[in-house]
Structures are given as structure tokens and as C-alpha cells.
């Protein structure tokens, strides 16, 4: 993973060429796949959903897979992004781009708040503290009815057209909406690839690998964890903001702990600590849910069983297993 191009050099002969290609051009590959994606999906809104949940999982995976902390409160980051974007449009009448910025800022800020309180705990305690804090956030937004619509959700986020450099884009058209959202997701993937390849990306992994050693080497472990959590909040906040624009409503369920659990499942399914894993996990999970729920109301039973089978037989996740095969 780290310095992939360097560390795989001696095995070049035995290694699949596609693997090296994929590692080198991971951002560009995502761009191409995202472009043709809605054409192969049963309907465009599903493709949009996959993009948004993939982005949410991408942000989550920075903390879960790369930093090595299991957060069970990421719904608060995703949800705050969605609500702040919605509030900016409904109550403040901000333009769409400012509302998205508000969503990102909301995710960053909420991550700072939760992070400051939770980051000194480890393992199961970190999961519990983040979950408890995200429940606090849930009730906060639930109670603030005037601002958030309470249990009815925040309605009326109507963005019909998007003005871009004098161009009026029809945001109601599903395909156009998909590509607008895809542009943000591609940008986010690019930023994530920069972060992972940066010096700080190496520090994140060092802290995951050995906290004591990282400290002795001169890294401030607590600050590194907090900054990573905040960065993760930015990605999740963006995902939330796009979700608000996509749905035209922010349901209160977005802050529910099920939303936190969902992203854990998506990341595990796709492959924790892998670059493409979150997006692939989101695609597999949501497509499965879509197919099975047409067929039976007990779709969760079947999707759950498939999830358990995946964790048992592919503990590295779908993408993680493929990568391991490719390296061999």
C-alpha cells in the first residue's frame, strides 16, 4: 500500500501488469468507471446513491482502514454535512456551491468536536464514545425542529438548476445530476489519493502500525489521529451535502446509528484500507439491496447473510482479495 510502486519492484516479473497499472493510475481509472457507470445500472438514482455512499465510505475508510480506528459515529459527520447543506439552501437561501461548502465545513467541524472528545480512547472504547456522541448529535438535530424539521426531516431543498460560469444546468435531469455529483466525487477521490501519497499519509499508516514507535520517531500520535479524523469528516460532510441535493430532503434517519453501521459494512465488504474498496463495497451492497428488496421484503436477512459469508471467506474484502491475488 505504502509506496506501492516502490515496494513491489522486485516482484515485477511475477506480478500482474494490470495491478501495477491500476496502482499507478488509480484516480484516472475511477474517473473512467464513474463516467460509464450510470449506463450499466438499472436506474440512474441508484448510481447516484452508490457514488454518494462510496464517497461516505471513502472518508470513513481513512479512519477505519488507514488510521486503524473503528468509528461507530460517522453518521454524525455524514448527517451534519447533509443538514448544513440543506439549512443553507432552505433557510439562508445560499447558492448550491456555498451550500456544499457549508456541508463540508459542517463535516469538518463536527469531526473536530467529536474527535477532540474521543480521540484519546482506543479500540472498542473509541467505537463506543463516537457512537454515544453521534447519538447526541442525532437528538440535537431531532430537537431543533425549526431548523431541521425534526422527525419529518428537512424538506424543500429544491435545486432545479445549477449555474456554472454563466451556464444553466438542469439539475432535475437524472443523468446530468449524476455527472454533476460525479464531478465532486472524482475531485474527492483525487484529493484522497493526494493525502494518501503525501508525507502525512505515511504518518497515518505509521500510527496505525505502531503507535509507540511513531511517538518515539517524533510524531505526535494524538494530533495525527485528530487531524485524520477531521479530514475524514470533510469527505463525509461532502457526501452528506451531495445526498441532501440528490434527495431534496434530509431525513432524520441519516443521523441514525444504522447509517454509522452501514458504512462499516460497506468498508468491510469492499476491503478496509484499500483505495477502491469503499466504492466497490457501496456498489455491491446497494445493488444487492436493490435486487433483493424487489424480490422479498426480508431483504436484510439475505443481504446480511451474504455480508457474513463475505467477511468469513474474504476477510480482506472484495477489493482487498483482488489486490492480494494481483500481488501474488
Amino acid at each position, binding site marked *: 500500500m505504502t509506496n506501492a510502486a516502490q515496494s513491489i519492484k522486485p516482484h515485477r516479473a511475477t506480478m500482474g501488469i494490470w495491478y501495477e497499472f491500476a496502482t499507478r493510475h488509480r484516480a484516472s481509472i475511477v474517473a473512467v468507471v464513474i463516467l460509464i457507470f450510470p449506463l450499466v445500472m438499472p436506474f440512474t438514482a441508484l448510481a447516484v446513491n452508490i457514488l454518494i455512499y462510496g464517497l461516505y465510505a471513502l472518508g470513513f475508510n481513512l479512519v477505519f482502514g488507514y488510521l486503524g480506528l473503528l468509528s461507530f459515529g460517522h453518521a454524525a459527520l455524514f448527517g451534519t454535512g447533509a443538514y448544513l447543506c440543506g439549512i443553507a439552501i432552505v433557510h439562508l437561501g445560499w447558492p448550491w456551491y456555498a451550500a456544499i461548502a457549508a456541508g463540508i465545513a459542517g463535516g469538518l467541524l463536527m469531526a473536530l468536536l467529536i474527535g477532540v472528545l474521543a480521540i484519546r480512547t482506543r479500540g472498542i472504547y473509541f467505537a463506543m464514545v463516537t457512537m454515544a456522541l453521534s447519538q447526541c448529535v442525532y437528538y440535537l438535530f431531532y430537537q431543533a425542529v425549526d431548523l431541521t424539521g425534526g422527525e419529518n426531516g428537512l424538506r424543500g431543498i429544491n435545486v432545479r438548476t445549477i449555474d456554472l460560469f454563466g451556464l444553466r444546468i438542469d439539475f432535475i435531469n437524472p443523468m446530468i445530476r449524476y455527472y454533476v455529483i460525479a464531478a465532486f466525487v472524482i475531485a474527492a477521490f483525487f484529493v484522497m489519493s493526494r493525502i494518501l*501519497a503525501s508525507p502525512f499519509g*505515511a*504518518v497515518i499508516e505509521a500510527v496505525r502500525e505502531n503507535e*509507540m514507535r511513531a511517538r518515539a*520517531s*517524533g510524531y505526535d500520535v494524538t494530533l495525527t489521529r485528530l487531524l485524520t479524523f477531521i479530514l475524514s469528516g470533510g469527505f463525509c460532510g461532502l457526501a452528506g451535502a451531495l445526498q441532501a441535493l440528490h434527495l431534496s430532503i434530509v431525513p432524520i434517519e441519516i443521523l441514525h446509528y444504522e447509517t454509522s453501521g452501514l458504512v462499516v459494512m460497506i468498508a468491510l465488504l469492499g476491503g478496509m484500507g484499500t483505495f477502491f474498496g469503499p466504492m466497490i463495497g457501496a456498489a455491491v451492497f446497494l445493488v444487492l439491496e436493490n435486487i433483493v428488496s424487489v424480490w422479498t421484503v426480508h431483504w436484510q436477512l439475505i443481504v446480511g447473510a451474504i455480508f457474513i459469508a463475505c467477511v468469513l471467506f474474504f476477510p480482506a474484502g472484495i477489493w482487498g482479495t483482488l489486490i492480494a491475488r494481483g500481488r501474488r
Partner: protein
Amino acid sequence: MTAVAGQTKEIILRTRGVGKTFGKFVALNNISAEFSRGAITSIIGPNGAGKSTYFNLLCGAFPPTRGSVEFEGRDVTGLPQHRFAHMGIAKSFQITSVFPQLTTRENIRVGLQALVSRYDIWRPRARLTELVERADELLALVGLWDSRERAAKTLAHGEQRALEIGMALASQPRLLLLDEPTAGMSPEETRTMMDLIVKLAKERTVILVEHKMKLVLGISDRILVLHHGELLAEGTPQEVRQNEAVKRVYLGQREH
């Protein structure tokens, strides 16, 4: 400053009356000592003497309950450990501590990076080429050049210990603290390690914690003997070897 035989010895590290208690247990009691720059000083003592506790106070792993630690004339008591690395103090761990899934080279490269870039999230780290070059030099120095692309967890025990030394050197320390660097090593690996330590000590100050006194008698300039959390004796290897108290509690053990 103390003048010894007409020359002023420069003190790099000094502890004044440091003590450490864990709950009611007194691990270390009132230790005052000075460490000269450029020397190899060994801290020895039987099991439970407080060697590791003292070591951890010196490297900032935890603060002392009492007393103060001074590095290059500056009070560093209670500073967070990552700051110690920035000041020029590096440590190796008693129990091998590396980044297991990273390559040997990346282990050292990350160690080097701590002085250059800790929070840059944008520039590609591949562009910090001088770090890779420095890492390669250190790999050669500690004898791990051939293992540079292997994951650290796949290295043999002795190689992991050498890697740790390399990582400690990465922060370009003026003071190198080694906690039982030969623990669990074969006699052959031990000899290699001792040679390496002597080599390293030519350019920097080394403080060594060691359980086996015999190992350090030959290479140390000065020896501190701890016993039951107290400083029992201090002096040159010759003086320590002839010290009656030391003989009783330490060397004498073998005769019974």
C-alpha cells in the same frame, strides 16, 4: 562545572533526584546522575533494579514523579515524547518495535520524515527523494541493505533489532538510548550488535541499558549500577568491577 583532571567534561544529560512511583510501588528513588557527551554509559543492574524505568524517564516515555531531567542544559521534564525526538534524543525499545507491515526501507524513511515533514497532506512524498537516499545509507550502515524491500515483520529477530537502531538513527540523534539492544540475540548477533554500537558511539553519545554486565564492561566509558531503584555505584568499568557492594548484589549472584 566539575573539572576533572584539568579538563571540563561536557554534560549532555543530567537527572536531578528523579524518582518514579507506580501507585505505592517505588520503582525508582532519588537518582542523580550526569552523562558525558561522546561517551558510552551503561546502566546495569539485576532484574527489577529500575533500569527500564530510569531509561523511560531519560527518553521521555513517561515523566518522573519527582526530580528533573536536563538535556543539553535545558529542563525537559514532562515534555511529550515526540518532542524528545525533535531535540535529538532517540531510543530503541527493549521489546522489538517496528512498523510490521511496512518495508524495511519505509520503516527508516518514516523515521527520517519526522524531522522534515509531519503534517503535509498535499505534496507527494515520493518527491522527498533525499529521504530515500538517507534511508539507503542507514540501511547499509546497519547491515539491512539486502532486506530493504521486505516487510519488517518478515525479518529475523536480529535484523529487526538492527532495523530499530536504524530507525533511532534516522532522527539524527546526538543522544542514542538503547534498551537491552541484544535481548534475545544469538551470540553471533550479539557480537555484531556490540560492534555496531561501538561504531555508532564514535559520532554520538550512547546510553545503554543492559542486564548482562559482562557485555558492557569492555565497551563502556562509564557504568551506573542500579539496585532496588537506587543508584548503588557509579564509575569506570574497572571501579565498578572492584566495588564491594556491586560484587555482593550483582556479580556475586553467579557464585552462589
